[in-house]
């Protein structure tokens, strides 16, 4: 299982903000910590702001702060802002309508269902506890 780069960046950022909801954090400090380009991160953060997950803070230092409910916002909610994870893949590929193609689709759907059920039931609050376990 792999998430797209923007999605990973979004999750890193959201978890940084959610860990300390009162604090506003400069984009540059997240870019540094996760070793990503500030330009790339800026796009991700403005998308998160547009969705209301974070809000921008004006004035000295600037940056963003968390604006959602960490106990209800799930990993899937964040992932969905950046890639299509719910619903079936509607793209048609050659061979889809053959018995092998349909069998393969059934097996892939099994894997996707599992991934969705996992991402949809891990809230940011739960994820922060998992993060804590990885600090040691």
């Amino acid at each position, binding site marked *: 299982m792999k998430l797209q780069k923007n999605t990973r960046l979004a999750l890193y950022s959201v978890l940084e903000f959610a860990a300390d909801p009162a604090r506003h954090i400069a984009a540059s400090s997240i870019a540094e910590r996760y070793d990503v380009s500030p330009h790339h991160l800026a796009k991700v953060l403005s998308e998160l702001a547009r969705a209301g997950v974070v809000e921008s803070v004006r004035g000295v230092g600037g940056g963003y702060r968390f604006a959602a409910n960490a106990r209800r916002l799930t990993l899937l909610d964040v992932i969905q802002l950046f890639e299509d994870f719910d619903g079936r893949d509607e793209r048609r590929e050659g061979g889809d309508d053959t018995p092998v193609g349909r069998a393969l689709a059934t097996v892939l759907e099994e894997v996707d269902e599992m991934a969705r*059920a996992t991402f949809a*039931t891990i*809230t940011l609050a739960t994820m922060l506890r*998992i993060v804590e376990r990885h600090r040691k």
Partner: protein
Amino acid sequence: MRAADLDAVIAIDTRVTGIEKRAYWQGVYKRYGASRSEGRQFLVADAGGVVAGFVIGEVRDWEFGSPPCGWVFAIDVDPDARQAGVGTRLLAAICAGFRAAGVTKVRTMLSRDNRLILSFFRSQGMMAAPFIPLEMDA
């Protein structure tokens, strides 16, 4: 869990599932409530004399080659008493019982579609177990 609590348990289950299963619950009580032995537990949350929820589980030995573990097979909190920590305390209580029975792993199995209860168990620290549930038409 006392015999007198059974009606309240049945009422919560009926409210949550929409189907009253009195005979089933009497069987569960006989097996898990009345007999305290063999790592079986049927616990109720007592909120000032009112049953606010329940949890049922048992120690299972060497199923599919896995060492004994605690198995939680039902947990329900009265819809009016939810999101106040009752579920958390029920799970903590049954885990304490499992530890007393000498097991250190707790497992459960849930419908993939029941996101409420999945989120609850996740919030308590549960992660996917190294098993995959399978089924077929018999």
